């Protein structure tokens, strides 16, 4: 017995004809009931792969979990069979995909697409009950129920995203995986959608993994943060612990430094040197070592462990394990 969602030492590989891509390399993440975790990282860090692994939706034959475990509410997801997974998906865990423009079926009306979830998961429901639920959920996400007989192309981007959220929420899942749900939207619409998701989260007490690369959105929306780099969580803590910016992983520090912020005037930004690690390589040491300005000998030799900074704050970096930082600052 333990956490609501427990991902432990997860390794995922994608095999192609030419090479093996190491997408996740020992990712560990716990999510409590009702908690919203912001999963931050750049393209290729393995954020989406984690979500797909939890739902067991990795592309067949190509993507494979090679090591580690995923426990959802005591259920071993990796060992679960097809029927069990079908029940979990949608009813217990559901996902909001990144692109609202392409994640809806263009030839089904919006109402039909929401109804589909109910038909699958609650076969005993009468037709009237079902219609009532569809109307309810549409009202909840701010779409007039009369629009359920319309097709996705008749909705704008923000409205489509609301439909996607409605589909994800109609079965009242206990865990929601939101994969960049607002990245494709304008800021004013993004603010509306985030407010909506915040309200819904409180009403339904849903746990959430919120995947994004936008540190600003994470701060406004999440309870805690997990920074992902090279398929590993390299920093974990509450919003306060991380955004105070006193002690951070060098990568997180770099991320903060390269966003122009409204509050501070900077003439030049400080980008992180170099490029994201080639995922077909598997270095022995810290994955960030090549780009890190604090890099030392042992960084390239072996991978540091998660080091407990205090509270719920963990950082995976040698600077903290051997006390270098305290002497510096």
């Amino acid at each position, binding site marked *: 017995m333990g956490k609501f969602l427990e991902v432990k030492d997860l390794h995922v590989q994608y095999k192609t004809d030419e090479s093996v891509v190491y997408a996740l390399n020992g990712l560990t993440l716990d999510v409590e009931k009702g908690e919203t975790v912001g999963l931050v990282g750049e393209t290729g860090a393995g954020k989406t792969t984690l979500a797909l692994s939890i739902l067991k939706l990795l592309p067949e034959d190509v993507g494979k979990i090679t090591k580690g475990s995923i426990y959802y509410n005591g259920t071993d997801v990796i060992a679960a069979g097809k029927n069990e997974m079908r029940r979990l998906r949608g009813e217990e865990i559901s996902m909001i995909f990144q692109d609202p423009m392409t994640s809806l079926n263009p030839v089904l009306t919006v109402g039909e697409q929401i109804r589909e979830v109910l038909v699958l998961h609650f076969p005993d429901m009468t037709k009237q009950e079902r219609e009532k639920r569809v109307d309810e959920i549409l009202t909840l996400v701010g779409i007039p129920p009369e629009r359920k007989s319309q097709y996705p192309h008749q909705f704008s981007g*923000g409205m489509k995203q609301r439909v996607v959220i409605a589909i994800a929420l109609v079965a009242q899942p206990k865990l929601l995986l939101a994969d960049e749900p607002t990245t494709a939207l304008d800021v004013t619409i993004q603010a509306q959608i985030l407010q909506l998701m915040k309200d819904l989260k409180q009403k339904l007490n849903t746990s959430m993994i919120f995947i994004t690369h936008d540190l600003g*959105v994470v701060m406004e929306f999440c309870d805690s943060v997990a920074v992902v780099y090279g398929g590993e969580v390299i920093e974990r803590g509450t*919003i306060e612990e991380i955004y105070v910016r006193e002690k951070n992983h060098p990568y997180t520090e770099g991320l903060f430094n390269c966003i122009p912020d*409204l509050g501070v005037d900077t003439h030049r*930004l400080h980008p992180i040197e170099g490029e994201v690690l080639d995922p077909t390589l598997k270095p022995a040491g810290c994955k960030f070592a090549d780009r890190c300005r604090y890099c030392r000998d042992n960084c390239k030799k072996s991978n540091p462990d998660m080091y407990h900074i205090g509270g719920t704050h963990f950082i995976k970096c040698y600077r903290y394990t051997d006390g270098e930082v305290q002497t510096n600052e």
Partner: protein
Amino acid sequence: MNDILLETVNLKKHFPTNAGVVHAVDDVTLQIRRGETLGVVGESGCGKSTLGRTIIRLYEPTEGDVKFEGKSIPGLKGKEFKKLQPNMQMIFQDPYSSLNPRMSVSNIIAEPIKVCNPSMNKAQRMEKVERTMELCGIPPRLFNVYPHEMDGGRRQRVGLARALALDPKFIVCDEPVSALDVSIQAQILNLLMDLQERQQLSYMFITHDLCVVRHISHNIMVMYMGQVVEYASREELFAHQIHPYTRALLSAIPTTDLNRRNQEKLLLKGEVANPINPAPGCRFAPRCPYASEKCREPQRLTEAAPGHFVACHACVT
């Protein structure tokens, strides 16, 4: 130093469609000085890209004028226009679709030189390409590489190098960093600013990201449905925004500042209205919390403070 490089006068671009006329750009008057950046901000569909394209005459304007160094562009014909064209270039939003996948990096960058400067021989051209690549921080080993072999940041550098190959004075940057990761975004922004300092370039920087605009611009123009709603210098605009739309836009940006967490937001209701045959009044009125009867009349851009223009009757009086 303070001379005006480019200006538009009451520029309009309308697109006729089956459903009616789309007023993509309506009555935009702006000025860009040499070595300065004008940031154009607005949501999708507000006409900011159309404005950029109309200025460099990828679209013919419906009405109004664009002047480059005092010369009216829309009237120019054939050779005259071709002579002017190298001065104005564009960088596109998507580094994945704006480069020809069947051309190598060197050929992509050499292409505009071939078109606009055919008298140059191959050796000269390749030398120019190499210099431009260096300027944009593209390592020489990528000379014969194809776009699909590079990541987004590199590709955007190639797009920039292609624009710079003709030594332009003015570049329209249409969301050049919004498709990139933050760490790469910072690299490209720094590069753009360095180039501006070195070569006295003028930019029109189109984006929806207010943080980026604040970082790079000297002046900022906020657009809503084809019209300018607010125009001011960067310091002025971020110190006090006047138009309700600008205020809502600024308040909607998520920040990384702990002190501003859980601050009350000015949430806008609804979405951008249909730009087909819009009513004559303020186009923001249906979403505006302060809308009144007077908003149905056409709004004019008025100077509310020195150098600060707003198109809202309620804000000026």
